[in-house]
């Protein structure tokens, strides 16, 4: 039973990581490309780490806490690094295509 749960969580995580990277390659401009890795990949990593936590909690003695540390660290740092990247992109005035939304909300260089 736990093997099924671990397998399903692993497959969900791998699919999300793959979707994030496909988005990184396929999207037309930087402001859209930022969505894939910062959202889909982080969710996939959280799912993979939950699967690893269940795996090591059932196969070995005691409750393993390391995975929760890595998950929390990734979930906290992904928005911060995404914010820094979008700030540098705005600073460099990157080109965006016509249908990118929210361009009017960009203020002048902060």
């Amino acid at each position, binding site marked *: 039973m736990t093997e099924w749960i*671990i397998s399903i969580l*692993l497959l969900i995580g*791998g699919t999300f990581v793959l979707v*994030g990277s496909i988005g990184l390659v396929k999207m037309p401009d930087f402001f859209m490309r930022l969505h894939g890795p910062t959202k889909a990949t982080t969710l996939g*990593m959280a799912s993979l780490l939950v699967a*690893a936590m269940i795996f090591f909690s059932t196969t070995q003695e005691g409750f393993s806490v390391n995975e929760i540390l890595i998950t929390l660290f990734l979930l906290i740092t992904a928005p911060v690094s995404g914010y*820094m990247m979008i700030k*540098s992109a705005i600073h460099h005035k990157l080109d965006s295509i016509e249908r990118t939304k929210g361009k009017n909300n960009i203020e002048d260089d902060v």
Partner: protein
Amino acid sequence: MLENVILIVFAMIGVSLLLNLWRLLIGPSVPDRILALDTMYINTIALIILYGMSMGTTLYFEAALLIAMLGFVSTVAVCKYLLRGDIIE
């Protein structure tokens, strides 16, 4: 069954690492390359954790935590350099 699933997920993450490498090579601007490198760090953590699961040891989690911290710090440092021309003012 679990061994086969781990192999499939290995293949998925390998493909996504290759896609990130492609974006890192062709990326038209510098923030694109930073984003691709940050994603490669995160996918490498996934690879290390899967390897630890297939070996059945928790030893590799320390390495994964180290890579996560170094990846975050280096991404923020490079972005800060792009923004201000200096890392610590």
